[in-house]
């Protein structure tokens, strides 16, 4: 994974963001104002800026800077927002139920953001290393093709060419594996056979894997199983590349609602307290 230098303009804006936030937080400290209110408003400002990225993505036809530059700003303000968040909660766990929910959700949003940043930088390179350029929409067809090819291999065998145990193993373990999903974590691959360890363990009940994978009639099926293992790894990476957004985006939506509520409650409480 390469560290890419950020866009200088974006970097400058982020630095300005830090300096301005610092200035207001210090001011709050010296004027003995409630620091949580000041940090809260700045945190809200950073939240709005972060949400604006989602809006920008919806309007690619407007000449308001490339989305790539906006993402750099998003990442920078994401870091600032994490710091402001900690300042806002004064580096402590909140007490009230609503505050705790808010705290956990904002934390989840930030963590998912950092996770997304990481996977987006780390995964594309490994994703391409297998030479596959698979549109996720094509994968179901690819899988169906594999199952069909392997069924054809078995159907094409002469009677008695494979022992009945192997055939049983094929129908009870190998074929279901070919039809199965890829899961969320990469399988551990057996270094010698190039297929998942878990599959080998299950096959042991039928036939010794060494005998199975060295038997000539089974070779074409073995090749297909190896391809499926590579494809699964590809799919797991694709899943992670997209999957984190299924947390990041909905949580953003929920947060928008909760923060509006939080601001209303706090200002109402303040007004009530003052009166």
């Amino acid at each position: 994974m390469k560290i890419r230098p950020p866009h200088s303009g974006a970097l400058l804006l982020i630095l300005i963001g830090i300096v301005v936030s610092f200035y207001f937080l210090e001011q709050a400290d010296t004027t003995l104002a409630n620091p949580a209110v000041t940090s809260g408003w700045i945190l809200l400002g950073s939240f709005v800026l972060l949400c604006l990225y989602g809006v920008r993505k919806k309007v690619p036809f407007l000449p308001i800077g490339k989305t790539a530059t906006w993402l750099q700003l998003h990442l920078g303000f994401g870091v600032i927002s994490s710091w402001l968040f900690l300042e806002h909660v004064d580096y402590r766990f909140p007490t009230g139920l609503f505050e705790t929910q808010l705290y956990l959700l904002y934390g989840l949003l930030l963590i998912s953001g950092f996770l997304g940043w990481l996977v987006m930088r780390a995964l594309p390179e490994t994703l391409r290393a297998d030479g596959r350029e698979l549109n996720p929409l094509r994968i179901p067809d690819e899988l169906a093709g594999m199952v069909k090819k392997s069924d054809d291999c078995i159907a094409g065998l002469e009677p008695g060419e494979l022992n009945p145990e192997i055939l049983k193993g094929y129908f009870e373990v190998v074929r279901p594996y070919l039809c199965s999903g890829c899961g969320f974590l990469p399988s551990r691959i057996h270094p010698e056979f190039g297929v998942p360890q878990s599959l080998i363990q299950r096959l042991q009940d039928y036939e010794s894997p060494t005998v199975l994978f060295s038997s000539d009639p089974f070779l074409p099926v073995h090749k297909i199983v190896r391809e499926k293992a590579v494809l699964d790894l590809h799919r797991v990476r694709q899943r992670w590349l997209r999957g984190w957004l299924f947390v990041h985006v909905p949580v953003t939506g929920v947060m928008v609602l909760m923060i509006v509520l939080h601001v209303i409650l706090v200002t109402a409480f303040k007004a009530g307290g003052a009166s």
Partner: protein
Amino acid sequence: MCPVTGSDIHDSEEDSRGHCFSPEAIPRVVLDWVQYNSILSIAWDECDSRGKSIESILQIDARVVEYEKADIIIRKGDYGGSVLIPLEGEIRVNLEESGEKNFARKRVTRKRSWLSALGQIFRRKTPVERIKTDSSTDKVYSSKAHVPRLDVDLEEYMSKNLTRRIGLGEICGEIAALRRSPRTASIFAETDCKLLEIRWQGVREILKNSKEFSHYLEDLIGDRRHQIFSGMKTLTDLPEAIQRTLSAKSIFERWGSDHWNRNFRKIMQSQSSMIDRESVILQQGHHMDGLYVLLSGFARVTNKEGSEEKTVGYLRPGDVYGLKELMKLSRTGVGSPALRSIRAVGAIDLVVIPSSDFVEYVLPELKNLDIDQLGSEKGLISTELLDFFLDRRIVNGNQTMVIDLNRCTDCDDCVKACAVTHDGNPRFIREGYRHAKLMVATACMHCIDPVCLVGCPTGAIHREHSTGNVVITQSECIGCASCVESCPYDNIRTVEVQDANGEAVIDLETGKPVLKATKCDLCIDQPSGPACVNACPHDALHRINFSDASGVSSIVERITG
């Protein structure tokens, strides 16, 4: 058998052409008139004696077209693949540069306002691409192209501007048709008129079979040859007198196959070595006879290393080769053999300015900066990558979409952005040729040699003067799919036209749905320009202009480095 005329086709090349230029046979009376009254009369007997009658050529490659008074027949700057011979009526060529603005294509597409652009977000996705007819109530449509028209008082225009009448039976439009270069002048109808239009394949066939016709055209083109230098980066500053002298002394050559785009997809599938298929124009180590200036097409520059030819660069139109060798000649008086070989990639036109003429006429006019620039090799990219770009003719692109696979996260934001700006139907596919971590997506490259333009019968697909982008004027497209077949990169599609109610528009004459060609238009009407480039969050998607060597190498270095 030609499906339309019923004439037998023996030539295998014609067989592969598949269809005739016109759905109707050329009437006998027209053929008789052409035989005795047109310039083709000089070639008639010669072609007959070689067993290739002009009549059979015309039945396949010609058609009769009619224009009304003030119609614009040819626009200066457009690409066209045919020549014209007036049969009836009067046509004129415009010779006044200042008058050209009257012939200019009205900009059909204007940039949207921000408000109108924002409206696109709420537009529903159409099942097939919807191209609206001019009138939203029109359910029927005539496939006769909308001919552009001069919007001036014709008599007054002709009295105030220099124009020249093209006599009946004379030929015009030959330079652009044969050299695949832009039209050099505009032509308009002075009265209602009838013309014989012969597409370039037919003209080449006649040239092949008639020496006399070939000499005639050579002389005609030679008269205007010096104009080609004006279109070139560095030689454009040469005084016109020198340009004329050079054009008289230079050698004009044509290499490679004109049909490269037609069988290109087949060749790509055959996986055979591209370099071996290319004609060698200049062999490394051989006598260097002059400065090689590329007029059209592309050339591969190679260096022999051991027994292997390694690609070290490429030439695009306007590029020159041989400066290093000629500079040595001018400094030491001793000629240097060619340091590299040059090969024709596809069809190319080039001019060789003989060494002595170069030293006498060109060198004194060149500035040191020009010499450095002209002499530098576009060799900052690895041989493998150069081969990748050249073998697949990707160097043709002025706006090639290249994706950095190390950065691309498969998020498809680029495709979504393209869809938002085109009624829900993206104009490119995020798949394509791949070399290591670089992918060339299936999107129009807005080529420097836009082969898709050549067969377009109406000039609907054209290059915009101001931007150089290749765009389709929908009102002029008749959906013949000639551009779809000509594009060697599969970057154009045809789609059905729907009216404002979403119903297919039917052609009155054929009874079939009207089709139009579509492709990436570089978001010509969007306030932002290319939405795909704008939308990529990871700066993975680039548009590359292969004329800009430093731009190419900086992006390539970023991707591969």
